[in-house]
């Protein structure tokens, strides 16, 4: 059987979900026989080509995130999201409590360790938008919540997908923290 092609992206996140994936340890060896990683943060390939499964970690936080999410969605048959940020908005969405100006000022100027800080500006830097979970931007087919999701939950979701089913993480292994 041909290997399933997988691409992944991390948006506004801490990369913990991808780390949790790597924590599958020896189960990775079996998975490696069934899937082929294409463009992912792990392979450090950034241009998506058509794949069977797209995976997104993190929330959509700026115009670049939105573009990546839409790009991956356009290139994959099934889109799975990992982690509370991608599923719900999570900890990165806490900045929605403040205006963009307040956030930037706090981060670049007011932090206790900063002296003569300045908010950087360049047309290469994508402007911040309101932080949104992935399903507010593109259609999502399956969700693995958790901060990060346990390797068990990720393994469950991948195995279900390989067997042709859309996974819903069972209550016993679902965690939001």
């Amino acid at each position, binding site marked *: 059987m041909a290997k399933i092609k997988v691409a992944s992206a991390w948006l506004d996140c801490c990369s913990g979900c991808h780390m949790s994936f790597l924590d599958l340890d020896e189960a990775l060896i079996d998975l490696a026989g069934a899937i082929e990683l294409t463009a992912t943060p792990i392979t450090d390939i950034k241009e998506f080509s058509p794949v069977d499964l797209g995976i997104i970690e993190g929330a959509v936080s700026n115009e670049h995130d939105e573009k990546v999410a839409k790009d991956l969605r356009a290139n994959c048959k099934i889109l799975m999201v990992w982690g*509370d940020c991608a599923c719900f908005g999570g900890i990165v*969405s806490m900045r929605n409590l403040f205006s963009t100006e307040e956030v930037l000022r706090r981060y670049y100027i007011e932090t206790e360790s900063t002296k003569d800080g300045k908010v950087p500006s360049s047309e290469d830097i994508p402007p911040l938008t309101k932080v949104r979970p992935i399903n507010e931007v593109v259609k999502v087919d399956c969700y693995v919540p958790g901060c990060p999701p346990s390797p068990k939950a990720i393994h469950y979701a991948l195995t279900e997908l390989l067997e042709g089913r859309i996974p819903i993480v069972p209550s016993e292994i679902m965690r*939001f923290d």
Partner: protein
Amino acid sequence: MNEINLTINGRQVKGKKGDTVLEVCQANGIDVPTLCHLDGLSDVGACRMCVVEIEKERRPVPSCTYPARDGLVVKTDTEQLEKYRRQILELLFTERNHFCMFCEQSGDCELQKLAYRYQMDNVRYPYTFPSLSVDSLSDYLVIDHNRCVLCGRCVRACNEVAASRTLDFSHRGWKTLIAADMEQSLGESSCLLCGACVQACPTGAIFSKLSLYKGKTDECQQITTVCPGCGVGCELNVLVKDNNLVRIEAPRLTEPRGPLCRMGRFELLEPTPPRIGSPLVRNKEGELEECSLSRAVQVIAEKLAVTKDGFAGMISTRIPTETIALFNKFVGEVLGSDSIDTIDGAGYRVISEGIKRFQNNGKGLGIECPIEEILEADCIVVVGADPEKTNPIIGTFIRRALNRRKAKLIVIDSSRDVFPLWTELWLKPEAGNEEDILNFLAKIIIDNCLARQDRTGGEFFRSLSRYEIGEVSRITSIERKRLELAAELYGRAERGVIIYGEELLRSQAAGSITTLLNLANITGNKVGDKLRVISLKPCVNSRGAWELGLAKGIKQDKPKGLYLLLADERDGKELLDWVGGVDFLVVQASYYSSVTSMADVVLPSPIWAERQGKCVSMDGRALELKQVLQPKDGLLQDQEIIIEISRRLGHKLILS
């Protein structure tokens, strides 16, 4: 017939008339998810998690508020209902900040458990991100409105369990918030810090500062013991992780004896003074210095040899009965003295004298009624006592009676009205003048034919003849009208309960106590052979120790030597003044304190959580203190130290 028959999920089940549909489901093992429901609190149908379908109802109804009746056909688990519940959860999650990863209650949260149960892996509504305040000014509690689902369990616990009426809702609709009093910070409100709200809260909206990040419920061992805080003897559920106290809860929060107070729930978890870890004796420079137990015993033995007859013993009544009985033998046989007292013994001698004058050779403290009588009272008289301070659960009981039964409260206190928000009538005697007021009260009750005279009252009636009603204001400095009102309230009450305590006992008022008992007697306030009169007792085993005869009193004005088993009791000013003049002071205590700094020999002692044994609550119930923690650094128990000292001094004592 009280029984009703329903069909739930196609099954024939039985319920009782008056049950809600939810109660019938629960009684029959049918699982219906709930969030705003808490067993024992009234139901309000706030969260809608428990919706069910009922035949002939056009739309789903909350089962917690729907009265069950004969013939109802109910469905609790249809696909449509499950969809609604998931939808309700999503709406709850989007309304405020319910991100679990930085919430203290994650893992102990009912909202989170429901989300797992309904496999809520995404949310279909936009989050609202309201920016709400966090109130952390209270000594023990934090209210984070961002985590609140407005289930109202805290509001109901505050009103129904604590009877404090501090918490309520403010504003309306989706701007609704939990508020303390008139939107004060909890720390500046009428909150009594009983913590009923924190136990009732299903999310991380109300949490305790003292238990923060110490451990989750399922990582803890749970041990049920008795609160050492005062004489009431409330049951505590203590959560322990790695031999550390994590949290204290009420095992049966909503039952009559269920609620806890700040002492039981919080004060026991507060940081303590440094622990005494080994025996200490004075060195040549006069400083206390660590030493072996043998060395400490040697110092005591040397002193004993030269001070025959001069020793006395005094013990805390936080200590279990077995150790108290052993201490009694120790003082008698080893210290060779009959001069013995409990730290709270002076109060007992006044109570005991008062009861004796009322009923010579009677039942002693056995004449007092159980504290549950307060809950059923329609008139409560508090004389020289401050229950909120000394025995807060008695305060809770009083407020519950005032709340639920519309009881009337009379306070007789020379310094202040101890229930300013609740008192119907405050009589303010000159300090020490309580007896006259009480006698005039009795006189008015009799003159207005509110007394039910019987055989035992005659002598008392005669003793009142010297009180001339026209003299009331002159003698008591209280208007006649006010005393007449008090007489009316108490005299006409069906179940009048008198509570007295510390302040009255301080005025050495055996006569007042006799009058109180007579008052209850002539108005027929009896339950079986007991009178509706309650004295407040300060420690968990006060009554146990007193009834063992330990509160005899120290014979000498200043004993030459004193063996003080202070345990984990905090030293008071009175005790300090008293031990000041003692020549040779041995203190067995858990913490360094002003008293230990005055001692010649200091011996270590376990704290409440490290002890076990029997005790007697203030209303005479036998209780069992359980060991919750292993003693610090393998510390010996109080009784082991006493037995060891005795052995070295040539006496064989055994714990009975």
